[in-house]
């Protein structure tokens, strides 16, 4: 549909418009648009512009460091990486099953983080677009504007996030980059005081989460045609699913469905993920492009995250969230919901699910138990998969007989959505921007499309990029306005690039 906008037939004489840095998303990225003389969009790309190299530099590190080391991929959803790595190390130490206490503590931590991450994304980052309109004044279109105009909504968002962060702190010692999960289990359970501290506020969180679902529902339905159409693309959807088809973000098999809702595969053991998913490399992005092998590169790309999970699951095992799911599905009774902005709605249903699930866990005495850890015979290979707030997250490690990492593969949630985000901005570019002089409010629409996915470009930049020796900055006429050179010594020379006003 819009795929022809991936690469312009001839990029000469096209003018380049860049949105950089992308804001109100986590991490570093930029979008480039190429327009011809009549302002028709000829090319639109989302680029990833930062690189770290985790897969290489964790080689040689002991396996037990992984849960605390790799969570430094990301400060927004560190618990996802912490737990995916912990699940992989469970395999490494031969712990086939966790103790009930360990599994429940980990689930509590995961629900807490999903709640805080979803609250952060919706209230702090995305809500200004939804409450004020995509073309609101730049200086006002942010969380501070929300605090000023809608103090009650802002306060609930801040306190929902706080509660999620407190769940993480209680289960892992710190709000960000804690130490709760260890190979084969966890390092602490809850005390009665800690449990009661969290129980005190949980009812309020459930109520506010219901309010959040109500809010996004109202906003979406107020302009249903536009919101359904905006950045909408038909895609396959991938998620973890529990054995009985229930929504589960901590553990399950892989389920993929096509745009019509027909199954591609179901209940696949995630340890065999590499037989079903491959990643394509493209020259213009450091983020790879995963796809379902049986469907091929061209048609096999897919979406993950709240929209995929809510579409894919058969039911929620929490009553309030289940009621909301049924109402959500009315948007498209006969096939999966494909609207990109419906991500926000699905995300708030998950927020509610997490609040309910936290309450259920807090009432379970297993959280207070003292059996924390299982072990078996050491294995050489460990794979952990989890549904992070932004979607399916894969960690895969090989170790040697000394327990040192020799190989690693990470497919982070945002990478799974790479092609989908690119297609969404191309849809927006061709539907709403084509033929127009590009202004800030129009360009914000591109970012609105990206924000729907809640991309964590921080996670996505774990890979490491190439190092060109010389970079020139050209203006639209091809005139060199700046130059960067890297000398053989490694020193970098900057020839003061001239900035356009």
């Amino acid at each position, binding site marked *: 549909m819009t795929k022809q906008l991936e690469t312009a037939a001839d990029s000469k004489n096209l003018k380049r418009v860049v949105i950089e840095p992308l804001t109100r998303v986590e991490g570093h990225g930029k979008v480039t648009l190429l327009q011809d003389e009549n302002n028709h969009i000829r090319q639109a790309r989302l680029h990833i512009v930062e690189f770290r190299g985790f897969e290489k530099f964790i080689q040689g590190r002991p396996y037990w460091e992984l849960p605390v080391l790799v969570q430094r991929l990301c400060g927004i959803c560190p618990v996802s990486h912490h737990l995916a790595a912990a699940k992989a190390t469970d395999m490494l130490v031969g712990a086939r099953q966790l103790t009930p206490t360990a599994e429940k503590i980990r689930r509590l931590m995961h629900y807490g983080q999903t709640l805080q991450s979803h609250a952060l994304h919706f209230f702090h980052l995305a809500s200004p677009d939804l409450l004020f309109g995509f073309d609101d004044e730049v200086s006002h279109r942010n969380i501070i504007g929300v605090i000023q105009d809608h103090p009650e909504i802002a306060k609930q968002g801040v306190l929902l996030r706080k509660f999620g962060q407190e769940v993480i702190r209680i289960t892992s010692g710190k709000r960000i980059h804690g130490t709760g999960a260890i190979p084969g289990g966890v390092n602490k359970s809850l005390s009665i005081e800690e449990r009661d501290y969290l129980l005190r506020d949980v009812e309020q969180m459930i109520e506010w989460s219901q309010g959040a679902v109500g809010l996004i529902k109202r906003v979406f339905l107020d302009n249903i045609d536009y919101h359904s159409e905006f950045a909408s693309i038909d895609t396959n959807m991938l998620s973890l699913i529990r054995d009985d088809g229930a929504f589960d973000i901590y553990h399950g098999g892989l389920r993929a469905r096509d745009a019509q809702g027909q199954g591609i595969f179901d209940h696949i053991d995630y340890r065999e993920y590499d037989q079903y998913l491959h990643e394509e490399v493209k020259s213009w992005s450091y983020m790879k492009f995963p796809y379902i092998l049986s469907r091929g*590169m061209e048609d096999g790309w897919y979406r993950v995250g709240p929209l995929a999970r809510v579409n894919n699951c058969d039911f929620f095992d929490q009553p309030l969230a289940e009621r909301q799911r049924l109402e959500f599905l009315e948007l498209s009774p006969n096939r999966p919901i494909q609207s990109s902005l419906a991500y926000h709605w699905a995300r708030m249903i998950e927020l509610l699910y997490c609040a309910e699930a936290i309450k259920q866990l807090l009432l379970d005495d297993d959280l207070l138990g003292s059996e924390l850890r299982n072990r078996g015979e050491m294995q050489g290979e460990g794979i952990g998969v989890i549904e992070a707030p932004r979607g399916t997250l894969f960690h895969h490690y090989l170790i040697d007989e000394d327990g040192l990492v020799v190989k690693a593969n990470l497919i982070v949630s945002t990478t799974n959505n790479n092609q989908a985000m690119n297609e969404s901005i191309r849809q927006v570019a061709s539907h709403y921007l084509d033929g127009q002089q590009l202004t800030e409010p129009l360009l914000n629409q591109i970012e609105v499309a990206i924000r729907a996915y809640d991309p964590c470009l921080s996670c996505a930049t774990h890979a490491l*990029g190439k190092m060109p020796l010389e970079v020139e900055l050209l203006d639209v006429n091809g005139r060199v306005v700046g130059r960067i050179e890297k000398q053989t010594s490694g020193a970098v020379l900057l020839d003061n690039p001239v900035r356009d006003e």
Partner: protein
Amino acid sequence: MADKIRIATTSLAGCFGCHMSLLDIDERLLDLIEVVEFGRSPINDIKTIGPADVGLIEGGVANAENVEVLREFRKQCKTLVAVGSCAITGGIPAMRNQFDLKECLEESYIGGIGVENPQIPNDPEIPLLLNQVHPIHEVVKIDYFLPGCPPSGDAIWTFLTELVGGKPITFPYTQIHYD
């Protein structure tokens, strides 16, 4: 309004955890915005670096763009603060300093599990990486170092309130111990 302290923030080669810790001041955010306003920051849509009283820098320096942004922050900010381990020492991303870049590239894009169309991305839109990840004080003068991975929301709150209040900055032990 005119008397508000203007704070700009950015994340270089970091994980955004320090920015999340800033938000961990929770409802005190509502008090903070009574006395400060934000310049360029990932939490708003201001994309240019203008004059600011305080610049908070998360992350180390890993590519040429980081160098440029950092120098611009130094030029525009009266007080520049290195926030967190990566800004102060390079942190976890600096673990790549022990490897050759070529090895790292091949690991990700050539020899990785399930990689198709293996190639090293080389588009001009992709920024220039440095051989090593550097702490930010190796590039510009830094006025304050706020340690932690990340520094807690409470530590950031203490720092900002005392700085804005013109007091010497001191922390209780509980706010500056590591894990």
